[in-house]
């Protein structure tokens, strides 16, 4: 049992001891694979360790671990999907515009970071923002393509900028 007087390292230790195998089981059932489950469970504890939440004061440690674990699980799948979309897009590129092998993988990391940055934006907002940033489309063109008003595009863009600025805070 953990009580409020327990020092933080001890509290983490106890949390790990009491719940790690339970969490790993939970993850393994969802991922169907013990290695990734073990990795994610470690990551979950790392997140908990670096979070501002006081471990000793946690009332429902398992519920908390599950919340963190679920988020990491979802990130894991997002990353796999992104990787796949990237590799697919790469395969479709004409031969002469394929980046060098080094560039290819550095680029993927950049895209992963941007994907994380944009995570949580509504689809249309995200699309408008990407068209503007990557294709350099003007607001009017975006409005035409999305079949919304220019005012709406301006609102979308402000929304996206605000979202990114807050994520980076």
């Amino acid at each position, binding site marked *: 049992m953990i009580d409020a007087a327990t020092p933080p390292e001890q509290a983490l230790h106890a949390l790990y001891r009491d719940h790690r195998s339970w969490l790993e089981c939970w993850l393994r059932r969802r991922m*169907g*694979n013990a*290695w*990734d489950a073990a*990795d994610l469970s470690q990551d979950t504890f790392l*997140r908990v360790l*670096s*979070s*501002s939440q006081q471990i000793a004061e946690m009332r429902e440690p398992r519920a908390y671990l599950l919340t963190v674990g679920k988020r990491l699980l979802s990130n894991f799948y997002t990353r*796999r*999907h*992104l*990787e*796949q*979309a*990237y*590799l*697919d*897009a*790469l395969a479709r*590129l004409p031969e002469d*515009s394929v*980046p060098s092998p*080094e560039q*290819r*993988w*550095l*680029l*993927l*990391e*950049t*895209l992963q970071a*941007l*994907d994380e*940055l944009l995570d949580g934006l509504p689809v249309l907002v*995200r*699309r408008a923002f*990407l*068209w*503007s*940033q*990557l*294709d350099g489309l*003007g*607001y009017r063109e975006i409005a035409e393509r999305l079949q919304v008003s*220019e005012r709406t*595009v*301006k*609102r979308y*863009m*402000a*929304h*996206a*900028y*605000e979202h*990114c*600025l*807050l994520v*980076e*805070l």
Partner: protein
Amino acid sequence: MSRTAPSSEAREVARAAAQWLALVESGSASADDHQRLQQWRTSHGSHESAWQRAQALRQRFCGLPSALALATLDRPDAGRRVVLKRALGVAVLVPSAWLLSRQLPLEVWRADLHTGTGEQRRLTLADGSSLQLNSASAVNLDLGTRHLTLVRGEVALKVPAPAPLTLQAPYGQISVSRSEVCVRLNEGYCQVSVVSGAVQLQPLHGPLLVLNAGQRVSLQASGAGPVTAFDPSQADWRAGVLTAQDQPLGDFLRELSRYRPGLLRWDPALEKLRVTGSFRLDNTDRVLALLAASLALDVHSRTRYWVTLVPRNQLG
């Protein structure tokens, strides 16, 4: 990643900066607006810094190859799945991660199936046959004619029924019934290994061949090579493992690269080191860590996708 929630003041500033930027970009800002923006920026240090951060944000997207970046970041996951669903009638082919591949009933007549690097997929057909696609592989399936075409990579096909399924590979045709076979397409040749039962094999040139369990043959444009023996009970990619028996490290790493998105390079001095062991393919980072633990080499990761192996003590 822990961070405390931004203060309401910081939120307010971020919102204002975002709205200013969108207004300027929209092209509808008046001279008056521009002047008010200047005032807003100079009125407080936090305003100017938010404005600068917003500009820096735009920089992050500059210079990216737009087609590639758009296809990756604006990926229509949900949409694509709907299209596929419609195209296939019933089956839903969710891009499945390594070892997440489940038995998916495929009650369709035609489908083009593929896996990405590091991905595996397993399918059960309506007649009880099953096929498993290895990493970076593609097949076309036509159940009307009971024809499976291997386009790239590697496929394992198990047909328990007496009605044969024909597997078409670039250098020959294999008829599979009451048997299980693995076919792997390499540069310039195609390797056929019979896991159980017996298969009939028609090379592009030469006579029909019958191959039994534990036998393996290479097919080339010129015909079939000699039949060799292998151990069909040894766990391989179908079980998610890579097994090496006193194998040169170079060969092992070339094989491992098939399962690993990204660049894997190694110092030529490592080529001749020997590897023995059974390695799980679902986490190739771990395989590399295991190699580093048992051999005199260091893993140098520039990024997750760019890894170089060097002899130990050469990193300086």
